[in-house]
């Protein structure tokens, strides 16, 4: 271009370069990225992915209950043997959880405002139970997580758990022998997996990794994974209720 236009010196035609430091530009970048609609979607997908990772990891850990009682108890002791790493993971998860909820509520509020008044006759081109209930299923899972942490992590809802130091095996079985506890658990993991059946396939779409050839595999694979996870989680209270899992002592 310069040659075509008579090789004018660059400085005379362009504003002085911006000398702002990298740190401020990085902050500006994050701030403007977060303000944008697509940026917020990226945050939801990134934090969602972290939480999906946890959901899978937690399931793999939990399924050890089907082994000898020592197996899951040793696993619990192993986790508690490195408190610093445990708290790092917990902090990351807590941050992801908070950001995921905060950002989606912001998105949902904006969406409601953007839609404004709706038509009298409302219809969709296909039934979409998971997509339409993302906020509700998410918030119900949040209430479950609060109870679940109080139940098994803080152990403040069941007096019998106080004496069971690292005996996770007995604790889980005693906990799930209560049909109300099991019922709430089953309902919650069902909602979680309904949430994930839309969440899984949304992650690659938001990251720009979807394509015509991958699309079917991503949609079907995401739904299959969600219901495999449901089967995995549901198997534990069901096994307890059906007396396939009983306390060792």
């Amino acid at each position, binding site marked *: 271009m310069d040659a075509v236009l008579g090789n004018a010196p660059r400085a005379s035609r362009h504003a002085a370069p911006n000398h702002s430091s990298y740190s401020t530009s990085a902050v500006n*970048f994050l701030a403007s990225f977060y303000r944008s609609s697509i940026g917020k979607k*990226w945050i939801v997908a990134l934090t969602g992915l972290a939480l999906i990772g946890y959901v899978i990891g937690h399931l793999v850990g939990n399924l050890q209950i089907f082994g000898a009682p020592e197996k899951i108890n040793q696993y619990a002791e192993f986790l508690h043997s490195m408190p610093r790493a445990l708290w790092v993971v917990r902090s990351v998860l807590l941050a992801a959880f908070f950001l995921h909820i905060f950002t989606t509520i912001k998105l949902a509020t904006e969406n409601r405002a953007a839609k404004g008044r709706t038509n009298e006759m409302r*219809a969709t*081109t296909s039934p979409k139970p998971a997509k339409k209930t993302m906020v509700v299923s998410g918030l119900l899972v949040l209430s479950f997580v609060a109870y679940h942490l109080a139940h098994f992590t803080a152990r403040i809802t069941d007096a019998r758990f106080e004496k069971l130091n690292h005996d996770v095996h007995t604790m889980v079985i005693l906990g799930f022998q209560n049909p109300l506890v099991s019922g709430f658990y089953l309902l919650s993991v069902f909602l979680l997996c309904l949430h994930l059946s839309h969440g899984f396939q949304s992650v690659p779409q938001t990251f720009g990794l979807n394509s015509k050839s991958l699309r079917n595999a991503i949609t079907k694979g995401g739904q299959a994974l969600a219901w495999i996870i449901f089967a995995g989680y549901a198997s534990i209270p069901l096994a307890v209720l059906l007396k396939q899992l009983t306390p060792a002592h």
Partner: protein
Amino acid sequence: MNLKLKVWRQKSATAEGRLAEYEARNIPPDASFLEMLDILNEELLAKGDEPIAFDHDCREGICGSCSLTINGIPHGPVNLSATTTCQLYMRKFTDGQTIYIEPFRARSFPIVRDLIVDRSALDRIQRSGGYVTARAGSAPDGNAILIPKTEADSAMEAAACIGCGACVASCPNASAMLFVGAKVSHLNRLPQGQPERHQRTLNMVKKMDEEGFGNCSNHYECEAVCPAEIPVTVITQLNRDYAAASVSKAVS
């Protein structure tokens, strides 16, 4: 054919609107949906009533002027893909059927009158970056710039967007991501679009947000109603290109 219509009537942008009932009588099955409204309007005029105001222009499915949410679906019945309202024929309905006719709803599409909405927000997004800044002159020589067939096809697929706004109207979030995705992908997939790729993407998304459109949450209703059959993979590309453009801007 005789039909029962429930039509959204609203005198002006600020007036309170309501659904009004009409009987459309003796409609030929081969009439288009807009022609059915024309017939009804003739009757209303003969009676001295205000005709129903609706947008239309080419009536051959290529201009993007016609709109209407018919029984809750922009451009009409679910099972008919790739149809604009003007290309929708009354034979697709059953005699005696009740049909709801409402505007394309979104806060960014304010109602002007009856079924006419102001879709100029889409034009403003287009003006913010949906073009190639180039010396205007005669057309370049054919094959002066070589473009692989697959890329030309995918750019053409995105370029098929007629800008009707059905994507926004169908979206539960009133998101314009399919429209913006199509406009961005159309140019970002071609060599001519590369020099301004990042700036185009950033500007158009910024404008889209400023105009008050919602955020995509991957319902894909837009794709199902799009008369130009734009696939949601243009939204995938928009998500990808926006992240790349943001990072590129931050490190430059």
